[in-house]
């Protein structure tokens, strides 16, 4: 029997009768944790977040406490900004939408205390443009919070002022990259900035210190303060604390979003027990475990990882795909990543060439165009995959070219989009190369004659 879900962030979401308005939130204990936080020193809140070992839920899994510690409010003379990254657009990921639509006050409460802890007076929620309904819901929730004095001037009589505004993106995936998001919020094209020197903590929005946190991360802050950092750290496994919302899509019987303690469930349990198995009784072929940019994992392969045993000795273990626990560290150890928690499942009826061609079209559409290797490379990867999947491949020559292009993007661009676009190509070729060679060899010859 698979581990039961542990719904902390999703606790009230989809509960019959639970609505997204202030009254319902207050009836369920809403904003009580904010009152608790306002009774604490700002540094004490930051300490609790540090102790909780909370890692960011946007994709990179960076320590939230560490990110906050880069900014020392007592030494900074410029304004400090906080931006909630609600530009959810990583293919396979659909958790933030649920929180925003169904429990927006949880996000606002977490955000207000995060702002208080970091001495932020003005914050923005950057929501992706297509989520227009979500923007309306958030604006209404912010108005309700202002009316109750959880936001605005002299919040709860503590002499602390904070304003939060909703800012809408306009359909560009690159805005999910934090420095691209900042450029976009400044009213420019979302061209990511180069790091160093433009670390948001130093030179962020308007060249001021800025914290950018994901929706789920900010919601987690509320629960860290409620239960205390040390108690929060007991959930999950060491270095992978708290819960994780896993979004499952693709070829399973019950796709959806599920919340588990980090690392408490294996890939196999998730797919076969929680998600009702593979569609149509077919077999599992491959999984993309953390949003479309994460490297694909093949079902019939053994994954060797090194892990500490109970006595602290390093031991080598061999895992099947289905044995892999869904935590940050193990997924990294098997050569992929937990990323944004978006799991895309492909069964044995799926053509890997077409799956990759689909993804590469996404990256070709979404490259911001700033760096040449990425702008040109993603287009060529799309073109090659298009001709291979349409029967105009040029044999192994095409596959080698595809590999070569992918290998020359990663590490040569300003932001991580270059990696995000090449990892799927590199990993699909590594795991399923014969499929690609076969398809590229089935050329009609037409394209070859033309070239």
């Amino acid at each position: 029997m698979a581990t039961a879900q542990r719904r902390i962030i999703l606790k009230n979401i989809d509960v019959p009768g639970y609505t997204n308005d202030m009254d319902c939130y207050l009836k369920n204990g809403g904003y009580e944790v904010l009152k608790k936080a306002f009774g604490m020193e700002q540094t004490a809140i930051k300490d609790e977040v540090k102790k909780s070992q909370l890692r960011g839920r946007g994709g990179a899994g960076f320590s939230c406490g560490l990110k906050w510690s880069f900014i020392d409010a007592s030494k900074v003379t410029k304004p400090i900004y906080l931006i909630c990254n609600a530009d959810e657009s990583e293919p396979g990921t659909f958790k933030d939408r649920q929180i925003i639509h169904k429990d927006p006050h949880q996000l606002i409460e977490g955000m207000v205390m995060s702002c208080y802890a970091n001495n932020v007076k003005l914050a923005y929620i950057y929501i992706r443009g297509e989520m227009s309904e979500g923007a309306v819901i958030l604006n209404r929730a912010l108005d309700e919070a202002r009316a109750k004095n959880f936001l605005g001037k002299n919040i709860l009589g503590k002499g602390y002022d904070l304003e939060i505004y909703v800012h809408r993106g306009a359909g560009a995936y690159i805005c999910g990259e934090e420095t691209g998001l900042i450029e976009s919020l400044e009213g420019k094209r979302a061209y990511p900035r180069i790091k160093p020197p433009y670390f948001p903590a130093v030179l962020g929005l308007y060249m001021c210190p800025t914290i950018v946190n994901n929706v789920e991360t900010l919601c987690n802050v509320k629960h860290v303060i409620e239960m205390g950092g040390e108690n929060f750290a007991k959930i999950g496994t060491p270095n992978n604390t708290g819960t994780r919302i896993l979004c499952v899509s693709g070829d399973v019987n019950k796709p959806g979003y599920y919340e588990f303690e980090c690392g408490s469930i294996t890939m196999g349990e998730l797919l076969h027990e929680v998600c009702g198995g593979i569609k149509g009784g077919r077999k599992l072929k491959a999984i993309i475990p953390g949003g479309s940019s994460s490297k694909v994992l093949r079902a019939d392969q053994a994954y060797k990882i090194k892990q500490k045993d109970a006595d602290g000795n390093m031991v080598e273990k061999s895992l099947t795909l289905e044995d892999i626990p869904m935590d940050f560290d193990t997924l990294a150890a098997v050569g992929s990543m937990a990323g944004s928690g978006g799991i895309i499942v492909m069964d044995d009826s799926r053509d890997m060439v077409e799956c990759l061609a689909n993804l590469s079209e996404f990256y070709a559409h979404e490259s911001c165009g700033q760096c040449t290797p990425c702008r040109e490379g993603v287009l060529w990867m799309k073109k090659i995959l298009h001709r291979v999947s349409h029967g105009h491949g040029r044999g192994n020559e095409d596959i080698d070219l595809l590999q070569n292009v992918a290998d020359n993007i990663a590490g040569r661009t300003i932001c991580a989009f270059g990696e995000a676009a090449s990892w799927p190509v590199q990993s699909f070729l590594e795991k399923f190369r014969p499929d690609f060679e076969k398809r590229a060899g089935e050329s009609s010859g037409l394209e070859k004659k033309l070239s």
Partner: protein
Amino acid sequence: MIAPLQELPEDFVKKVDEIVSHYPASQRSASLMLLHEWQERFGFISEFAIEWIAQRLELQAINILELVTFYPMFRQKPFGKCQVRVCRTLSCALGGSSKTYEHFKNLTGAQGDEHGPITSPDGKYTIEFVECLASCGTAPVVMMNEDFYESVDEKKVEELVQKYS
């Protein structure tokens, strides 16, 4: 030639002022939100819109035009009465979104390129394949104007085309 502010509806100008007030450190930040406001109100971003917004924010027109050409949601031509956005990316593709897209095209008579907006001959529907709409668990997903629909199979396409006719 830029029309003076009072030539636009008063409530629109007021709304613009409110939006700009959200960005006390730099009014340039309001550009995207003003473009949204304009497009929702007047249907598309005209040359006049670009000049007007630039003037309102004390920017050059190119500062606004470069946003319109960068961000996929902004359009410089009018769309059909109903904008149909069908998600194209992997999870929706696995769920059958290309059938959904084709069916919209067949029922409305819209023809053309696969990765750009196409409008039906009667001007009623503009159909577009778009990238991930972040609801991959209920593939394929479709947006009819700002309304969101999940698990849109061919039967549902027929209902939607009717509903938004």
